[in-house]
């Protein structure tokens, strides 16, 4: 029995063919150019043509939190990130390295920055902007929108700026507003947490969580809009930049 148990113990590491190198072996200018071609077809859909994020994380940064080493970057590109939308790929190792080389080049090439003042931005977020009514940052804030505690590691300045000015321009599939009507006439509106052909789960505006089998429901309506208001005209251009600067400081360092 114990040999069997030990076998299980040593099965711990996922079975991956990680190259045993510390430097990217395909990082010449020609490799980066080929990497860019591959990236456009395979990565830009989520990460954007310039790597500034969107559905996927912002890659146009010097420090990629999930890829601190070249080997880690190779692993993320090759194997994806489990249980996130980042998928694995069956590309050959050379192509994986070329994409990795291009991704590294994005950080140094990016002109995307903000001149805003983070301390001033924190004030706007908690006071004038009213952001914490819906968004959580550490111990503070609400539940209607996504938590922002690590948004600075995920999104580029350009993406954040765009979201503040035109929130509807880039809708994600999470945090959709849903309204269901039960067969006995009750109507419940809230954030859709999950849905499948047979059931739907909703968190209402009082933070009550509901789950329905659809056969109990007369109607299900999931809206293709966001409840987030545009801050165009509500905040000055300088205040928007301050908010962006503050959000960029949020990297999971809550408390």
């Amino acid at each position, binding site marked *: 029995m*114990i040999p069997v148990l030990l076998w299980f113990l040593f099965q711990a590491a996922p079975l991956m063919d990680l190259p045993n190198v510390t430097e990217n072996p395909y990082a010449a200018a020609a490799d980066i150019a080929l990497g860019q071609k591959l990236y456009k077809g395979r990565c830009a859909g989520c990460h954007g043509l310039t790597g500034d994020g969107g559905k996927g994380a912002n890659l146009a940064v010097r420090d990629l939190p999930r890829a601190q080493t070249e080997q880690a970057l190779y692993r993320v590109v090759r194997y994806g990130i489990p249980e*996130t939308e980042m998928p694995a790929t069956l590309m050959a190792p050379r192509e994986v390295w070329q994409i990795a080389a291009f991704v590294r080049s994005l950080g140094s090439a990016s002109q995307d920055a903000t001149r805003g003042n983070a301390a001033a931005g924190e004030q706007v977020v908690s006071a004038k902007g009213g952001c914490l009514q819906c968004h*959580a940052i*550490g111990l503070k804030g609400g539940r209607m929108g996504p938590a922002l*505690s690590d948004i600075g590691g995920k999104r580029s300045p350009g993406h954040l700026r765009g979201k503040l000015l035109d929130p509807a321009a880039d809708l994600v599939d999470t945090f959709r507003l849903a309204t269901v009507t039960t067969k006995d006439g009750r109507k419940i509106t809230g954030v859709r947490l999950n849905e499948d052909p047979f*059931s739907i789960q909703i968190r209402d505006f009082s933070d*009550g969580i509901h789950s329905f*089998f659809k*056969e109990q429901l007369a109607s299900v309506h999931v809206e293709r809009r966001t409840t987030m208001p545009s801050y165009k005209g509500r905040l000055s251009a300088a205040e928007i930049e301050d908010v962006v600067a503050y959000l960029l400081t949020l990297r*999971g360092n809550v408390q």
Partner: protein
Amino acid sequence: MKIPAILLVCALAAAAQQLTYERLLHPEKEPSNWLTYSGNYAGHRHSPLTQINDSNVGKLKVAWVYQTNSLQKFEATPIVIDGIMYVSEPPSNMAAIDTRTGRALWRYRRQLPDDLRVCCGQVNRGVAVLGDLVYLGTLDGHLLALDTKTGAIRWDTVVVDYKLGYSITVAPLAVKDKIVIGVAGGEYGARGVLDAYHARTGKQAWRFWTVPGPGEPGNETWKGDSWKSGAADTWVTGAFDPATNLIYWGTGNPGPDWNGEVRLGDNLYSDSIVAVDADSGKLKWYFQFTPHDVHDWDATEVPVLIDAEVRGEKRKLLLFPNRNAFYYVLDRVTGKFLLGKPYAKQTWAKGLDDSGRPIRVEGTTPTLQGVKVWPSVAGANNWYSPAYSPVTNLFYVAVRDSGAVYYTGEAVYKPGERFDGGGFRAIAGEEEQGFIRAYKPTTAEVAWEYKLHSAPWAGVLSTAGNLVFGATNEGQIFALNARTGAPLWRFQATSLLVRSNPMTYAVDGKQYIAMTLGNSLYAFTIE
């Protein structure tokens, strides 16, 4: 599946309530829920629910399955509050799941460093909930507070530095306004702590070092500086008694595991139960089961608290079937030893003296050539849970019966490196035995036993439906008659080992049995 609308309305009303300490004190008032790791503070893992019972359990069917995509062992006991299940997943992830449908309400995925120090699998045994926060310990040594409604991180506190060999696998315990949490690291010489953090803020409330420092009582039980790498980690959830205001928590093996030469002495408080004040973390009493352990017999089993008569006197008791193959009954007010006797094959002690101290058999210390000793490293019991039923007054334990060949080896401590000082192997030709046994709690007499095919890695649940649930290494979950041990139901769930504990809950007026089996969490009910 049809669900009456009235029940849904009830569920909605309940959903708005928060989990208060008052509710944690009285889980018996809300048997639909499973509020703490062991179901109550006394470690009983018993439910008053009777809808699933000895007359209908044969009709139990799978309601839903939630699969983790990790290949690591799925050891967690879920918590269920008002229709929502909170469960940790390996390695340091968690999910909130709708208990009607099995659909996730939110999920949390932690990015872990590549250089973790984990002896025995990247596992997690569960979460604690208090107020609107759910608490998760992580393999990189953090304690996290997540919003129960969204999964957003509300605070993130570093408990220990994983680079020193620590990890966190234990389910935390919410007591009053604090979150109590232990650590693992016994194979890395990581000096144990039992910590409490303020539930709202994550600030440390107290720390109890399980290996006393210089000048503290007990430090003299470690030769030289060996206390610094003394381990005695705290990786299984303990119990709490509001009447004594004491937290009872088991401690692990002294470091290094199998070479005792470098740490001569009794090595307090390794392999002990420690009783600490819930408000201050100060030690009230301790009882060391295996002084100067050289076989890796962590006392990291779940302590079970009952009140019963012993030799004509009503007492507050602590039951502890130990990994070292002795069954102990202690007075939990004073720590006084009341009873101790072997409950599985053991060859290391002639018996226990009047104070409960073992009388060692010569020649059982590990050697370079290897020495054969019973029980094995995994012991007669391990981290998985027993169950106590106040209905039958029986104590149910999944018992392992096996030996091992123990080796000693070099032991030079370097922070963050493996520090076990030896090894072990199975005894060639020996067939391990496994049982579910029902014990009379104060005498350790066997009321009945159910023989398993191999020595188990899964705990048990008892219910007032006259049932005991358990699981096998061969992938089945099963139900036994709680009074007789007669088998009543089984289900083949996985080709993997089962390493977890069953629990039960009810939602919309319907009772479910839930357990992680292989890499999936199953919920069973009667249609």
